[in-house]
């Protein structure tokens, strides 16, 4: 009998021939990711009475949640983190402006096939797009990992999601994953490993794969993976210098559920307020007035997302009643978009371009809403009150849908502009 991706990665990490779902193992992560919450983590760490982290090369710390600092408290927080990084000799530190942690981590070569990556951020599963086992943990235990280099993990059972067909024009990975979450619901994959496979997945760029793995958190997944192939290897070349051994699920692995989807007739989707699983085709909410559009975040802030928006907006102008915020997910993305004229096209169309970072996604700054306002966003969460007022509304959608909606001033199917 064969084993799933998660079972094989975790068995290798702990030096066992095999592991079973439900088994508790003590894993040694290859990378520990944290962000603006590192100050709080470091306080836990010092409270235990330790002075040195177990291995400073394991830590990857990216300032992204409130960047640049929006208040004195944020600024003090950032300074605490810089002091901790200097004290501990942590080289994997990326300061304000480098980008969102889930974009920066792989760009800087900290994700590779077969790696075990944990992060004190719930969207750490994003890095399964690179063939790694990547899972979110809490802040308390991030400190424990810093101290000991180890953490307990319960081996998850696996769902396999096989996707066939060819993605239609103006329909993208974000629409696919919203559709799946609408089916499975917010807890449908709770504590499961999710494997995405099939020809439609293989046809996705790395950016598209990151969208799927990133959003898998919103159906409760422990981790998600797209197994490495030539697309993965090409993207990683030049970024990852270490040798790595890929892990692939066995053909006769045992899955708790196998689901199949076909994207051939997939329509653009939205998640309506106030839950991510409140999904319907865009057509059902078309015509709803919006006040703000957001293109960015760890879900959809990459070059191909900005280009999808540019393709719709180039030479045109957004509706007068709308603010369109664009946040490239990293400095690298920003530079590429500048070079290709994408930023100029978006600015000329009326977009407000903000610095790489998490921005308004979590309501900290850079686009918070007033009561009654509506934002259509490429982010991954639309919980009530998340972007400011508890009486504001957030719809989640693809970059193309957000751009089309900013153009018209109402929620719009991108196939119609």
């Amino acid at each position, binding site marked *: 009998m064969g084993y799933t991706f998660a079972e094989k990665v975790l068995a290798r990490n702990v030096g066992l021939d095999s592991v079973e779902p439900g088994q508790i193992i003590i894993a040694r992560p290859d990378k520990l990711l944290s962000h603006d919450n590192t100050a709080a983590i470091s306080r836990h760490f010092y409270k235990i009475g330790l002075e040195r982290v177990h291995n400073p090369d394991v830590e990857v710390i990216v300032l992204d949640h409130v960047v640049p600092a929006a208040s004195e408290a944020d600024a003090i927080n950032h300074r605490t983190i810089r002091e901790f990084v200097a004290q501990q000799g942590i080289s994997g530190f990326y300061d304000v402006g480098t980008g969102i942690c889930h974009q920066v981590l792989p760009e800087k070569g900290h994700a590779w096939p077969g790696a075990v990556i944990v992060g004190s951020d*719930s969207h750490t599963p994003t890095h399964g797009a690179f063939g790694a086992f990547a899972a979110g943990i809490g802040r308390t235990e991030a400190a424990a990992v810093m101290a000991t280099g180890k953490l307990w993990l319960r081996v998850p059972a696996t769902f396999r999601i096989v996707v066939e067909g060819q993605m239609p024009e103006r329909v993208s990975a974000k629409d696919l994953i919203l559709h799946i979450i609408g089916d499975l619901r*917010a807890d449908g994959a709770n504590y499961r490993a999710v494997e995405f496979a099939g020809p439609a997945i293989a046809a996705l760029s790395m950016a598209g794969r990151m969208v799927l793995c990133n959003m898998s958190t919103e159906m*409760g997944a422990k981790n998600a993976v797209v197994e490495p192939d030539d697309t993965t290897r090409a993207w990683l070349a030049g970024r990852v210098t270490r040798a790595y051994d890929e892990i692939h699920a066995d053909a006769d692995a045992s899955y708790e559920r196998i689901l199949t989807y076909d994207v051939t007739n997939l329509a653009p989707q939205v998640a309506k307020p106030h839950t991510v699983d409140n999904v319907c085709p865009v057509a059902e909410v078309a015509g709803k007035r919006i006040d703000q559009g957001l293109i960015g975040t760890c879900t959809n802030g990459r070059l191909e997302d900005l280009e999808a928006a540019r393709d719709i907006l180039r030479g045109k102008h957004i509706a007068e009643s709308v603010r369109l915020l664009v946040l490239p997910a990293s400095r690298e993305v920003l530079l590429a978009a500048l070079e290709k004229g994408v930023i100029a096209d978006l600015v000329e169309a009326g977009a407000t371009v903000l610095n790489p970072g998490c921005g308004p996604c979590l309501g900290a700054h850079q686009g918070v809403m007033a009561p009654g306002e509506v934002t259509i966003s490429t982010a991954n969460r639309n919980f009530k009150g998340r972007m400011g007022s508890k009486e504001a509304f957030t719809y989640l959608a693809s970059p193309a849908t957000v751009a089309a909606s900013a153009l018209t001033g109402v929620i719009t199917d991108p196939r119609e502009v």
Partner: protein
Amino acid sequence: MKATKVQGRIWVLTDPQGQLYDDIDTDQIFHNRYLHITDVAEMGQYALDNLEGWEDFSEKAQPGDIVVAGGNFGAGSSRQQAVDCFRALGISAIIAESFGAIYKRNAINSGLPIVALPRLTGMAEAFQTGDTLKVDFTSGEIVLDGQVYQAQPFSQVQMDIYQAGDIFAYGKALEEK
């Protein structure tokens, strides 16, 4: 040895229609605007203040009380404060149909007792705010109004961490072995 059985008054998290809340996410448990707070003592006052109908929870709850909720309690972000705010209030246990994966880890690692009672939503009428119930972490048994419900007992690692206090004390104890 910490107590493996607790008894307390329950707060059953129902929506304005009286239905048990499912999918209570960590934004509702502890809103973004308080995320800069890292002192546990200051967190309790904001617990559930973003959950419709429960905005005054922290004023009503007493140490020793037990929270009861539907499925996928603690969905969403990994914020530690969503666990610590209940510890700050002295909540002795959270019973839910199921928990979000990261929330579950956070709670276990902080030594906050959580107990999953599958199919709770189907039995929700039996659980009324103000009742007193007993829960046994070792056997998973919940006793309410003379009825016994079989919840999931603590896993071994959960019990070991709970007895040690939290993940750090547990780790220290392991190193010393």
